[in-house]
């Protein structure tokens, strides 16, 4: 009979390989489900890989999609450090995109100053949007998971209101989008692809957040609060202020992702500006194990799945929401593998 016993130390081998194995197991399970739905999984996976990694343009698209994932993933992961759940990166991204668009459409600022103002406004709007849940959590202990999540729906509806209403492009044939930003307020792109400077900003922020978390007092205190809130309280760390601050930073990063989507990818604000990046960010943060570099690696892997999933929409007429299936399954397997990291199977003879 097989029993499970607790390991004294977490298995190093499993810790490193578990995320990769989980992705593989999830793909295998999804393949079985696809067979039931009458889809050839091999053709689907071949199409996905070919689209996301099979060409120079495909790789550039993967990096384009990894950009908002890196930023929102960083944001969710810094909140995780404090055991705060920010499930609202999606809405914060929308609010950031709105803030950036507001500057682009109304301020009259141009060039670098304009872009810088858009960047700051995006961070501030995203930050405040998340900061509201942080404030409610800190001051009244209101469940931040539910509040951040519900605020996604509000932010998305708000942006819809703007692009269907007051901000709608008068020459846009009634499509839900704003006029295009002036060319000097659009981020420059590389090598004739859609890869924009937002990607470089995201990489820079990975470095910044790494230093912030590992080398500053703030970063250290956040970790202490996450690991042992009681000890943090005795050490005189103001937990309430940290919760609000961390939520603000978390939302600001998601807001910057919105800046990248509006100013880099679309050159305008429009309905559906995010393809669920804020939700995928939760997986990114969880798989990355709270490491900033891990966030980068996992974001690229998830971007492969997103780009591949998009291609299935065209190749096989599958719904966009289909990629959620992969994401859910990956997380299930990650959770199951956590069990194997903490416990080891032991063969026991029955009857001793």
């Amino acid at each position, binding site marked *: 009979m097989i029993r499970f016993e607790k390991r004294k130390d977490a298995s190093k081998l499993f810790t490193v390989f578990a995320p990769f194995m989980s992705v593989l197991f999830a793909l295998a399970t999804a393949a079985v489900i696809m067979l039931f739905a009458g889809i050839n999984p091999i053709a689907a996976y071949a199409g996905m890989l070919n689209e996301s990694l099979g060409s120079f343009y495909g790789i550039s698209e993967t990096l384009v999609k990894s950009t908002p994932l890196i930023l929102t993933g960083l944001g969710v992961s810094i909140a995780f450090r404090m055991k705060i759940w920010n499930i609202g990166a999606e809405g914060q991204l929308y609010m950031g995109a709105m803030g950036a668009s507001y500057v682009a459409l109304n301020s009259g600022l141009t060039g670098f100053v304009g872009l810088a103002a858009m960047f700051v406004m995006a961070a501030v709007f995203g930050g405040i949007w998340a900061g509201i849940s942080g404030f409610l959590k800190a001051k009244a202990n209101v469940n931040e998971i539910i509040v951040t999540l519900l605020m996604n729906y509000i932010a998305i509806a708000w942006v819809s209101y703007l692009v269907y209403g007051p901000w709608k492009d008068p020459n846009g044939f009634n499509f839900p989008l704003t006029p295009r930003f002036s060319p000097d307020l659009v981020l420059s792109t590389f090598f004739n692809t859609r890869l924009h400077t937002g990607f470089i900003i995201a990489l820079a922020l990975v470095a910044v957040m790494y230093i912030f978390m590992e080398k500053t007092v703030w970063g250290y205190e956040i970790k202490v609060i996450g690991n042992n809130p009681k000890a943090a309280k005795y050490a005189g760390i103001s937990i309430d202020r940290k919760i609000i601050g961390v939520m603000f930073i978390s939302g600001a990063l998601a807001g910057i992702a919105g800046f990248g989507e509006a100013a880099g990818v679309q050159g305008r604000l429009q309905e559906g500006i995010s393809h669920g990046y804020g939700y995928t960010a939760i997986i990114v943060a969880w798989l990355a194990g709270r490491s900033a570099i891990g966030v980068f690696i996992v974001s690229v892997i998830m971007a492969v799945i997103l780009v591949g999933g998009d291609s299935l929409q065209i190749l096989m007429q599958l719904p966009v929401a289909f990629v959620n299936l992969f994401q859910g*399954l990956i997380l299930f397997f990650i959770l199951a593998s956590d069990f194997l990291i903490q416990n080891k199977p032991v063969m026991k003879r029955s009857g001793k």
Partner: protein
Amino acid sequence: MIEILLFATIKAGTPLLFATLGAILMERSGVINLGVEGLMLVGALTGFAAAHTADSLFIGVIAAFFAAMAAGAIHGFICVYLRGNQIVSGLSLTMFGIGITSLFGRSFVGLTIAGFSKVEIPVLSKIPYIGQAIFNQDVLVYFSIILVAAMHIFLYRTKTGLYLRSVGENPGAADTSGINVGLYRMSAVLVGSGLAGIGGAYLSLAYTPFWVENMTAGRGWIAVALVIFAQWNSTRAMAGAYLFGGINAVQLRMQAMGTSLSPHLLMMLPYLFTIAVLVMATLRLEKGSTPEPEALGTAYDREDRK
């Protein structure tokens, strides 16, 4: 007018009521389930598909219950037996539900069925003002109201209910007194998930009745918030669900009357309102003793027993 609004309120509140009751059952056992949104979608699609294929609404409801139960079993297994993180597992379940229903729902988009029809209860339906609104609804509405009472009796008047609550409050003590913690929690997750599935099926079999991708539109999340508003109590859950049904009814009414307000702004109402209600409910909880199950969200491991 009031009668029409009250009727619409109950109809819009019923899917929330099923889902909230399911979530309460699970949380009472100590397992939080953020997958309610996904479970409702699984229920909505399976219910519609089964009802359409078998040409029987009853079979639709049963199928929704068992399909959501099966999906909930994943969450139960991970949380109860693998002691995985309940928050992440629940979120995964929601993603899984959105993904799998979008895949299998493709062939059911655009199809129609004859949804549940009204069943008038004699005498009671003749009560002025409220009679037609409350006692001329479909059978699932009546079932949900019976369920509220049944859940209350189960939790507070039966031994099994007492054991279930003790598992949610102090699993260590429950274990010591010979209660099978894992079994109780798993059973609660299975039945609770099934109820969330019926909540979803109400949407696709009675409320609309058709299937569209992501048709729950956040109702699962509102249900999770309503559990806190209801203070883990089934009777209060009814008040909460109908409160939201009311908001929904007013919102639809305003849209139908052709208000100049943007439909997108009206769409925000239920979510704004949920947050406001959640804040108020939490403030009230903080003051008195909190009725939140003590062990909510934590895995039980016998080796860690104190």
